[in-house]
């Protein structure tokens, strides 16, 4: 096992990963890779190749297998993102209630398109697929964690102002 950089992830992060590992049978540590990558991303802001490799080594799995997971699921960021990543659902049910227009509004406010980051490094905008919250459209997800519902122009202004 190669754990080259002892300082790659904090003790708190490793503890969280251990808690995930404990959910699965002892010989199935790889099952925790999705959670471990998410925890690593929370701490690092995004998943650099060496972070993915570290997680793989920690879980005693081939780095390529961890990389496959990181590149398959949409919510992992393999490139640096802004402090606040805002994902707007523009899928059809949301679009019927303003999802696309809400995204347009954010684009105009921030002066960026999808998959771009503001010059000050504060915001990244992403186009999302169904978040399972179509009844609350327009919906936005902040940093993969906080779901914001019924986003009118006023609500969007408020959200952006809250992001310091």
């Amino acid at each position, binding site marked *: 096992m190669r754990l080259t950089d002892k300082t790659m992830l904090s003790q708190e992060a490793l503890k969280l990963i251990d808690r995930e590992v404990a959910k699965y049978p002892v010989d199935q540590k790889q099952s925790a890779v999705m959670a471990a990558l998410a925890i690593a991303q929370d701490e690092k802001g995004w998943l650099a190749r060496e972070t993915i490799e570290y997680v793989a080594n920690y879980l005693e799995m081939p780095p390529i297998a961890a990389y496959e997971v990181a590149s398959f699921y949409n919510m992992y960021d393999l490139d640096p993102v802004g402090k606040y990543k805002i994902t707007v659902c523009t899928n059809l049910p949301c679009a019927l209630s303003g999802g696309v227009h809400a995204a347009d509004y954010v684009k105009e406010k921030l002066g960026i398109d999808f998959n771009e980051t503001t010059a000050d490094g504060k915001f990244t905008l992403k186009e999302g*697929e*169904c978040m*399972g919250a179509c009844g609350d459209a327009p919906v936005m997800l902040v940093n993969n964690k906080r779901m914001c519902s019924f986003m009118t122009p006023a609500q969007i202004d408020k959200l952006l102002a809250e992001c310091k």
Partner: protein
Amino acid sequence: MALIATKNPLLTVGWEKGDAGWGIKEYEARGGYQALRKILAEKTPPENIIAELKASVLRGRGGAGFPTGLKWSFMPKVINGDRYVVCNSDEGEPGTFKDRDLLRFDPHSVIEGMAIAAYVMSANRGYNYIHGEVFEIYQRFEEALDEARAAGLIGQNILGSGFSFELFAHHGYGAYICGEETGLLESIEGKKGQPRFKPPFPATFGLYGKPTTINNTETFAAVPYILKMGGEQYLNLGKPNNGGTKLFSISGHVNKPGNYEIPMGMPFAELLEMAGGMRGGRKLKAVIPGGSSAPVLPADIMMQCTMDYDSIAKAGSMLGSGAIIVMDETVCMVKALERLSYFYFEESCGQCTPCREGTGWLYRVVHRIENGQGRQEDLDLLMSVTDNIMGRTICALGDAASLPVRSFVQHFKSEFEHHIQNCTCLVPHDVQRAGSSFYM
């Protein structure tokens, strides 16, 4: 919070208090965990429980509508070795948002349903796979699990019965394909969520290669209620072959989008009324009655349907997960299809060539029609691409991408032709813009 209206509330009784009613105390106060306690105390023979579920005609609430009692009876009877019960809460089918509210307002009903399933099928470990984008719901379920563990309702030797069942939550991270049951199992194993060939089915070769039963969140949640009221009584809430009540997620152009629990077989017109009718009093144009993968139905056909598996199937669509996407006259059907086609293109896992390449073809052709670059032969081309996808892939995503294309073109052909001939939309852009209500 999504609005709720019910007729004969069963699954949604606990939702009335909003975020104050989800805890174990509240759940037990409304009769929660009684079904599990009774089964464990009386050591009810598993076949009796399966018989009750068969009598209830509970059909899988995730989309396929497969009878739950029958599914549970497929698990091999041999006792030794690991076996698993898995809950599919990877709710990512556009239009569907019922499991999110179920886990938010009544997570213990899912835990109880899963524990009963585990007892019936002698499983001692289970996972609930929760959609990536609903982190707050994942946290809530983790809290509910802690409560259930502390109360001795899951874990080792539950209530001194000798039966043990460990249950955990697994958080997805953004992949629609993981809603497919074998893709979901791959994902729990820490891999890309690429579906497996079937057979073997999960009942014989499931999680980690062990016998596994996977059900939707709402299916598990219904189990304790069925066992308490009796299978036959549950069936009678709905209509023959379509037992019980069901949650319907209504999105799009209605005044009150949200979740509605209604008895199976209620006329669609009545449900539309419950949802506050059409937004702005506009005219209904089309409805997708079972999530984005279900064929679209024009207003006149939809208004004749009742909300149950059989009626919607007879009309040429699917009840699916009960996600009703309502579209009014401000919608350009080409644009609507373009967005759905992009979704399937984006979410195809890439494993099977017909789907990986075909979904790209579908999206690009619909995209060019929408953008004034359609060709005369494009509608035939779309049909030909769907012919080459459908039935030629490991899982149903390819079919799910094809059915909207076929049905949109079938029912709204004149709009597609107008786009191709005139390089513009039949529905004026300012009308479309007004439809979303964002700029109100």
